């Protein structure tokens, strides 16, 4: 960092085509949900209260923790502390898997209580929106696994470091989308 005044974009600039694109699309999904909710606010509110807020909060904390781990890992990689970076990434993946486990528990609990995706539009959107997010979590876990392989390299070139940063940004996006999703589905009444 020879010139601290220069604002640097993390990752390659191309990564942000994907990241911003994804954010826009989730924005469209959120608006769609709001429009549907406006059509039947009572139904949506009653259904919302059947969700497990505790599990939702736990999942939010789990993802925030994993994001923190990724930040630690990236810092460690920049300063060449590869062992710490790998450990932090394993922790992040562990959190990601815990998220998936809790989500599956939630799905099973909802479905066995008769609140499957076919019950009403709230549940339909709940399953689809969280399902699409879960797909992102799976992709993100793959990305984190890729980052672990990068910690084993002796030297990281500038392009590789940018790739690693881009991967980290993707995981933060997964986290960010969940925070919005959590607020929208579990909290907004």
């Amino acid at each position: 960092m020879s010139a601290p005044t220069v604002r640097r974009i993390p990752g390659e600039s191309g990564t942000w085509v994907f990241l911003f694109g994804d954010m826009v699309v989730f924005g469209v999904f959120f608006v769609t949900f709001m429009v549907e909710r406006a059509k039947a606010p009572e139904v949506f509110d009653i259904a919302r209260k059947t969700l497990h807020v505790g599990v939702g909060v736990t999942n939010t904390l789990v993802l925030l923790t994993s994001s923190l781990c990724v930040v630690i890992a990236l810092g460690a990689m920049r300063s060449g502390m590869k062992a710490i970076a790998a450990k932090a990434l394993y922790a992040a993946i562990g959190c990601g898997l815990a998220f998936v486990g809790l989500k599956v528990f939630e799905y099973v609990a909802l479905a066995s209580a008769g609140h499957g995706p076919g019950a009403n539009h709230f549940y339909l959107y709940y399953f689809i929106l969280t399902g699409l997010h879960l797909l992102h979590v799976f992709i993100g876990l793959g990305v984190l696994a890729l980052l672990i392989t990068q910690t084993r390299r002796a030297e990281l070139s500038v392009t590789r470091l940018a790739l690693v940063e881009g991967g980290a940004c993707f995981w933060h996006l997964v986290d960010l989308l969940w925070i919005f999703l959590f607020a929208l589905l579990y909290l907004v009444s």
Partner: protein
Amino acid sequence: MQRIGAWCGIVMIVLFSIFFSVMAKLFPPLSPTASADEIADFFVQHKIWVRFGIAGSLLSIVVSFPFLAAICLRIRRVEGRLGMLTITQLLAAAVFVPAFIFAFIILAAAAFRPDQRPPEITTALNDLFWLWFVGIAGTIIVQNLTLAVAAFVDKTEPQTFPRWYGYLNLWVATLSLPGGMTVVFNDGPLAWNGVFSFYVPGAALVIWLFATTFVINSSVKAQQAAEADLVAA
């Protein structure tokens, strides 16, 4: 030649939109929850225009052949030979076009004599068309992923695919994924007229077509300029 191919992508989508949406009035899509009588009524009412629209759509789809050929050739430039990526793209593109054409022939059958048969038959043909039309997302996803890999491994000089184009392809692939789920849902955002399975992937596809034309055009131009310099030197 490759630049003409690239332009065919935009020509195709413009012609197709005119025939599909304006003439046949198939945009927005017929509802998957509409009754058999409503569906049959639509075809009886708009019989002539739907048929013209389908005929036009069938003819405009084939304009995409040179476009897909241009993509294959650009990928081959990245690989330097007829490698895995080129052949994967070739296969996906080769399945994509007939899948479109056959789907429209089924719709043509739905519009052929809707007033001379029970409405349930017309509805079944209509179902078949929409499920097919939205459900072929997989062949598009494979093309996007192939292009993304090609953009990331590209070491040609001048560059064939910019890296942002690789990320754009990943984005389109992610968005097209819900289209593959359309056979599961009769109603809601993942049904064939849903936001997640129709409008968003459709919009992404249009953005992709324009971006692809732009990328191929500018990279062919850069290549030609580089070759001209080489000849001059």
